């Protein structure tokens, strides 16, 4: 029986990726033997998948400079619903495979992209954007390390103008960083192989993260014949829209594409545009804000609680806060400095009660998380800017008097 939530997630994802949603899609059986597929077949959508012909836009920094970003697009061939298999753990020392069947039979979405990307960096950026979209939609938490998002990379090389070369499929990629490495390694490997007069086999390879290379996967028995056939237990999946909504059907059994479309949340690209427009920050800032879980919300919270202009606040968020969190491997949620504490500090700075150097000092103290407020720290360490002109003059004079020999130049006032 098909889970309704799977269908909703697939429709949402299809809409978010600009796909055409097939109002009628079909299920098929794909037959092959493997220890993690106890039924001997996997239910998938080979003939007519639920969504087709979409696109995913993503951004890249040119030359590693965040200030120069370029937008690229990768076409989405299709999204299909299918069953997951179990998880295999290979125990080479004991010459056996351990199989965990907990996830066998659970529904998943496969997103198939066209070969529009040309290097590891592009693949990584595209997948990162897909990850953010899936998380925003709630379709998936898309954490690669936990297998919630899995990526198989298909790589081939060819001379410009010539047809695409033979492709290999690279599996066992467990993070976005490794995805870039695996793709780049495989491109290099294929180029070297061809330049040495060799040929590329249409094979499946595994990425070895320790060695940073791809190796042929054992037991891929040549070209597989999956003997696809219609799944006899699942009739066609029919989706409706506002126009075609049936009058007398139990609404729990009805999925309305338009209803889902109206309720799509703002996608990352839209959120970034809004941040730039609303707060006057730079596009590359909006990328960093959305790249860290919770950072955009933190930024907006601080902006609400302070008189300091967002354009100035962003510097404190991206430079001071973020670098501290990175240094200590903390997430935004784990930050010992809350948005209100930071806002209080920035207010002191904005009202010119402290200097920016003093502010950094206070921030350093706030990181210790002892619970003191910025004002308390300022008073304790006597960091207040002196407003009294006479007192300032007295101090300056004392310094000058004490350092007569060192005084070379003095600027009046």
């Amino acid at each position, binding site marked *: *029986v*098909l*889970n*309704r*939530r799977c*269908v909703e997630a697939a429709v949402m994802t299809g809409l978010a990726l600009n796909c055409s949603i097939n109002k009628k899609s*079909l299920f098929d059986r794909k*037959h092959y*033997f*493997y*220890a993690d597929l106890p039924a001997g077949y996997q239910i998938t959508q080979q003939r007519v998948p639920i969504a087709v012909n979409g696109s995913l836009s993503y951004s890249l920094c040119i030359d590693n400079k965040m200030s120069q970003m370029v937008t690229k697009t990768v076409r989405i061939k299709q999204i299909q619903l299918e069953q997951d298999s179990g998880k*295999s*753990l*290979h*125990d*080479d020392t004991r*010459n*056996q*495979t*351990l*199989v*965990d*069947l907990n996830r066998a039979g659970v529904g998943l979405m496969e997103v198939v992209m066209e070969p529009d990307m040309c290097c590891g960096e592009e693949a990584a950026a595209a997948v990162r954007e897909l990850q953010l979209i899936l998380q925003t939609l709630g379709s998936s938490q898309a954490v690669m390390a936990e297998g919630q998002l899995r990526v198989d990379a298909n790589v081939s090389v060819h001379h410009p103008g010539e047809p695409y070369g033979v492709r290999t499929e690279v599996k066992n990629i467990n993070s976005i960083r490794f995805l870039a490495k695996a793709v780049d390694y495989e491109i290099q490997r294929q180029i070297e192989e061809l330049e040495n007069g060799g040929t590329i086999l249409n094979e499946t390879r595994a990425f070895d993260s320790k060695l940073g290379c791809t190796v042929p996967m*054992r*037991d891929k*028995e040549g070209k597989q*014949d999956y*003997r696809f056939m*219609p799944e006899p237990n*699942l*009739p*066609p*999946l*029919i989706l409706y829209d506002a126009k075609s909504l049936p009058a007398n*059907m139990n609404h*729990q*059994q009805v*999925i309305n594409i338009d209803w889902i479309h109206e309720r799509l949340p703002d996608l990352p690209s839209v959120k970034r545009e809004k941040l730039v427009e609303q707060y006057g920050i730079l596009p590359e800032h909006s990328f960093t804000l959305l790249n860290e879980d919770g950072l955009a919300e933190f930024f907006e919270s601080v902006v609400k609680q302070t008189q300091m202009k967002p354009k100035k606040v962003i510097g404190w968020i991206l430079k001071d806060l973020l670098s501290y969190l990175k240094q200590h491997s903390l997430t935004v949620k784990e930050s010992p400095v809350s948005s209100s504490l930071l806002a209080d500090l920035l207010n002191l700075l904005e009202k010119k009660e402290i200097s920016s150097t003093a502010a950094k000092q206070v921030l350093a103290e706030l990181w210790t998380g002892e619970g003191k407020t910025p004002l308390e720290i300022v008073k304790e360490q006597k960091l207040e800017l002196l407003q009294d002109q006479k007192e300032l003059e007295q101090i300056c004079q004392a310094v000058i008097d004490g350092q007569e020999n060192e005084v070379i130049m003095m600027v009046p006032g």
Partner: protein
Amino acid sequence: QKVSVEVLDHLECLALVDFRDSEGVERLQKAIQFADQLHEVNTDGVEPMDSVLEDRWCLYLREDDVTEGNCTKELLENAREKVEEYFVAPPGNIPLPKLEERDTFLQGS
């Protein structure tokens, strides 16, 4: 049209079925002939049918509610070998040996 040895060998590898003897192959031939009668019907311009129930058979969408589970012990009872809560399997598929190396009646054909 008889089914070729190559196809029979391919089927034995794919489905791990054993035709065993000429009677088994004959049965397959008859089944194919029987099914081939479908070709006598002209289906030009006709949408393939998914079920005789046609529009009355709607795909049932189940709510995302957990209604069963926590039966690890019973599920693992079937395992010949286990390690902690994992089923133990050989390191990979052991494909059927090639036709020349198999003890099968197909060799003689």
